[in-house]
């Protein structure tokens, strides 16, 4: 485990571009309580903020959470500290993609059946969320 000291580039990038400061979080967990996909997250939303506070960049980069977040904005709507967690997640996704290079998900990974049935909206938004 890395110690959370010093400034992490990933985290600084995320902060600057999302305009959100993880230090505002006092870990009440309301985001995690409200999150519809909370059960599927390896790090709950409030943990993501805690990891950000601790500077645990590697753990965040490996976490599934940013990729499972569906940007439903429920966390942000209910946060008592006015932190827009949806923006934090988006910030993380992009910072990770940019740092790492390459895309997370592309058309090649879809079955022909999916490609036919899925609404355009799903394809576009999926690509947009997971690609650089």
């Amino acid at each position: 485990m890395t110690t959370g000291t010093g400034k992490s580039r990933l985290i600084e990038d995320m902060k600057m571009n999302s305009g959100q400061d993880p230090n505002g979080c006092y870990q009440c967990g309301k985001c995690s309580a409200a999150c519809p996909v909370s059960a599927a997250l390896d790090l709950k939303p409030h943990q993501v903020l805690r990891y950000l506070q601790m500077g645990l960049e590697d753990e965040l980069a490996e976490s599934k959470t940013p990729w499972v977040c569906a940007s439903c904005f429920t966390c942000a709507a209910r946060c008592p500290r006015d932190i827009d967690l949806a923006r934090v997640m988006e910030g993380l996704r992009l910072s990770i993609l940019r740092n790492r290079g390459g895309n997370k998900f592309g058309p090649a990974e879809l079955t022909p059946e999916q490609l036919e049935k899925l609404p355009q909206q799903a394809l576009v938004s999926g690509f947009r969320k997971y690609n650089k």
Partner: protein
Amino acid sequence: MRYRYFPGCTLKGQAKSMEDTTLAAAKAMGIELEELSEWQCCGAVYPLYEDELISLLSPVRTLAAAEGEPLVSLCAACHHVLKRAQELMQRNEDARKKVTDHLEVEYAGEGRVLHFLEVLRDDLGFDKLKEMVKKPLEGKKVAAYYGCLLLRPSKVMQFDDPENPTIMEDMIKALGAEVVKSPYRTECCGAYLSVTEEGVAADTVERILDSARRAGAEILVTACPLCRYNLENCADNEGKTPIKVYYFSEILAEAMGLPSESAEDQGTKEEVPQG
């Protein structure tokens, strides 16, 4: 009542029926929806990353194309993106300058950006709508499913009370159907996770459907093509009471006595579930 109209990609493909039924119903109600002469995909998601201005080019071009007149869309995602892009243009001068300079358009956030439901509520009025109903949907138990994009973030969308919205229920009531409320009507369906994390979307969708069933719903209406796709395709409904999912416009058209999928109850359409 005349509006500029932005259809968006999905309405020209998978969700054609939402467009067809809306246009037919609007015509019958005397609401003129004039499709923008040129339009592009809204981008489907609003960029939450502050330096992703490139993704705003398309929605801002659309907003500017409305020339300050009220702009209506039907798809929840399109409306979400347009409304938030407009708010950013109003709020952030720096972003506005960058985007409009790049597009070489003049746009400072003017004009109303409306979802068609808002037109029904605010401009037409549900009382008026009730008078126009030809075939009231009597005896049908209909639950609204709002999802995320119309409601949140509420400060920007200003669509309805984000935790206890009523706009769809009010429409359902006006159409003569019985309103059924489920606590999960504002919860996320999983959105594009159906593409990448099918299991997760299956959970979210199952919860929504189960909750609607428990409340006694027979029909679920939505304004979002992706929600509908997920609700129809992601859950395993084996052995459960079937629930049909329609666009809000389809039951609207039906009640107006116009042809619609929901009215025709066509056999080609897969029912959810088959079991």
